[in-house]
């Protein structure tokens, strides 16, 4: 038992220390990969680290003082969410903490009384509304498939959860696009320039504030891919290979979708993600419960 606790603490510490490096590298790869897909050379894979370092060397500039501590709280709760997941805590609790974190982001954006930021915040709320049901159903799916909400128990399952949760997996991949702010669902804030609401939710963030936002996104990215990994992990140590392979595939797929699709409007996003949730997530869970 104590050994297990040690392992959990070690994994959590590893997440807190290593996630920004991994997340930053993923962001860099994303830009490199996108550039290659578009026939460009693109920046270095370490570009994200350069960006953040630059952002922190800029002078502190705010629209109002509240921005800093709300952004700080957002960053804290994002890290906390990931830490909960890697510490093997209850999956629902993890997702609820994620929602709390997202609320801080929305509040940080709208406290500025800036039109672009506020529209971004409103769209972010619609995004939350779109992905929340699928997120909850995924947690329920894990519970039905493995008999526990605790991540620590889920990773010890005899077989991969994906075998029982194919619908939930596809649904989760769908909302992953929303969560990662990838086209066609990058409506609250885009990584690309020239969208109609400037930089959306991050419009009023500059210098260190934006740097904090970037780092939080790295943490979140690692957290989300860990969720993808959770579908493939089992008590068999070889499943780690499956996790790595599938996470890389999911990553590639997200970049591909990002580069090949145009942005949708918020109502299309809401309709489509709710339909997918209901059809894939809902039916998957109903069938699981029926053939239990």
């Amino acid at each position, binding site marked *: 038992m104590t050994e297990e606790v040690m392992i959990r603490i070690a994994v959590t510490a590893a997440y807190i220390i290593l996630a920004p490096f991994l997340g930053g590298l993923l962001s860099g790869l994303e830009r490199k990969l996108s550039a290659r897909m578009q026939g460009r050379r693109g920046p270095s894979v370490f570009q994200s680290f350069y960006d953040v370092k630059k952002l922190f060397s800029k002078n502190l500039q705010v629209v109002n003082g509240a921005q800093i*501590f709300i952004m700080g709280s957002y960053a804290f709760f994002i890290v906390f969410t990931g830490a909960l997941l890697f510490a093997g805590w209850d999956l629902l*609790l993890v997702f*609820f903490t994620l*929602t709390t974190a997202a*609320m801080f982001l929305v509040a940080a954006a709208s406290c*500025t009384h800036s039109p672009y930021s506020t529209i971004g915040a409103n769209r972010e*709320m619609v995004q939350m509304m779109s992905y929340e*049901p699928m997120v909850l*159903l995924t947690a329920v799916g894990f519970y039905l498939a493995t008999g526990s909400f605790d991540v620590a128990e889920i990773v010890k399952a005899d077989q991969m959860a994906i075998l029982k949760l194919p619908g939930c997996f596809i649904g989760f991949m769908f909302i992953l696009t929303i969560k990662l702010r990838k086209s066609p669902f990058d409506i609250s804030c885009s990584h690309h320039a020239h969208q109609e609401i400037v930089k959306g939710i991050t*419009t009023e963030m500059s210098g260190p504030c934006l740097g904090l936002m970037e780092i939080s996104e790295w943490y979140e990215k690692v957290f989300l891919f860990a969720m993808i990994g959770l579908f493939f992990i089992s008590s068999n140590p070889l499943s780690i290979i499956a996790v790595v392979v599938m996470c890389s595939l999911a990553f590639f797929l997200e970049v591909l979708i990002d580069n090949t699709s145009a942005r949708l409007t918020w109502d299309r996003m809401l309709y489509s993600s709710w339909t997918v949730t209901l059809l894939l997530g809902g039916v998957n869970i109903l069938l699981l419960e029926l053939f239990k």
Partner: protein
Amino acid sequence: MNVIPYLICFPFLAALVMFCVRNRKVRGVLACISVAAIMVMVFVLAYCYISDGKSSQLLYESAHYVEYIMQAGEILLMLLVVFLCVKYKKYPVILLSVIPTVMILLTEYIGPELAETAHIRLDRLSLLMCLIVGIIGGMIVVYAVGYMRRYHEHHVEFTDRSSYFFALLFVFLGAMFGLVLSESLTWIFFFWEITSVCSFLLIGYTRTEEAVRNSFRALWMNLLGGFGFAIAIVYTAYKFRHLSLGMLVEQSPLSMIPVMLIAFAALTKSAQFPFSTWLLGAMVAPTPTSALLHSATMVKAGCYILLRLSPALSQTTAGMFISIIGSITFLFASMLAISQSDGKKVLAYSTVSNLGLIVTCAGVGSTGTVWAGIFLLIFHAVTKSLLFQCVGAVENSSHSRDIETMQGLITRLSKLAFLMILGIIGMYLAPFGMLIFKWAALKAFIDSGSHNVFLVIILAFGSSTTLFYWTKWLCKLVSYNSECTPCDDVTTPGQYVSMFFHAVMVIVLCLTFSYISDYYISPYISDIFGETVEFLSKSNLTLMMILVLCVFLIPLLIYLRTRRMKKRTVPAYISGVNRQGGRAFFNSYGDERHMELSNWYMEDLFGEKRLLKFSIIAGAAVVVIALVLVIGGALL
């Protein structure tokens, strides 16, 4: 247990005093003293009960003289309703009042000989309701003292009938105590009708055309429920020869018809679809009414009765239909709340939606859901009453309760805004009460059997829409501009006492609920279901408490840490030149244009036009099917 008669009668006496005292100041002081007395009595009751050590007590087997008073009271109520119906020419409502009363009276005089059963039941659930009614209700009355003063200063067009208002509040408190403590069906029915009529009179307080229309809607819907209740009483008397709610539940598969009818009455009282419209209309009443009757206590009476019935509903068709109605209400009310900009209307829809969740929990009727349902009831009472009071106070100060006008309230009315923010995050965010028990309910639904999976799916969608309307309200409050016009805070100290008390309760309950569960709720659950289950693991609960602290401490710490940092403040980017600190801009002709930020309402997706009728029809269909199937099934 000698306190009980005093507890029920004292508020009526206080009401009489309120009605007679015409001086506002004296009345205010008297109201506060009466509230203090009521609270003392509730605490004495709680102390006696706990020191007694018995889990459930049945009292007052024979109380004939009280029955006579009640019959007189019922006739009086009927006459009052008939008089008002005639006055406002709402004749059909008369039938809904006269028939049940006559039915009950006839049953009592020419009906069968009934077994002598207890009239009062004191157990953990009813004591809990007493505590809610006494403490929350009492605080709201304290709030009302200041509120009504400002209300009439602001609304000079309405005649000041404050003494009548306070009298009704106290009558209502008395009736609520009676309702939750009664075991005899006729007693419950009597207090039930009093609360209906109180609510009707309070909604019509301003006597405007809209108020009268809405009050009659509330009246007929509640009386319709009462009608169902009366039929249940007559049926029970003839079929089972007793009038005890507890025995009815024990006889459960046989007593499905009265149980369903009482559940139907409970649905009307807790404003489930198709009966939700009365609660939405009730928002024309002064805010303490909405806080007390229409969110914290009266609508909870329906939930309370359903929780009482839940052992009988568990794993039955009736229970399934009730959970369907509850979940439909939960989902659609939370969607409809998105399209509203009136603060009280949003609170009303949110109330309906949360009541739906409690009703669902009671309908499923497993150990876990009942446990979650009771906690939802407690947390909702405290949090929602805080929110109603905040909206009322904001309305008195800024003369508007529209959420759009609450832009930047955090700088204009900081104290009220902070209280409101606490209330809002208490309603939907981890790690606060409502969310924890939504989580517990979610787990309990899955565990309670495969036929409840659809409830899980509905809950998932309903929580996401809930998230949306609260977050956008919250954002409106914090979105401030340096040049927002300041507002005069006219809130009286008494109001602040009540609101701060509620705010402290919200946090304290979050920190202590695992103890409340261990020492109070779980024993009750094991009493009625005969089994104990650990619903949320201890480690999770500890983590929740840490999270509660984090939500407050982390922003505060970062604030203190970064407060002195050198920073440059720039105007927000609006793709042009800011004027008035960003509240206006220069357009391309060089003219100054004003700028307003507005929330999203998604009228064509979640608007009342699109969803309200549909949800009412859906609710009505389920209610009719449920009644036909359950009663028909039992008769066959």
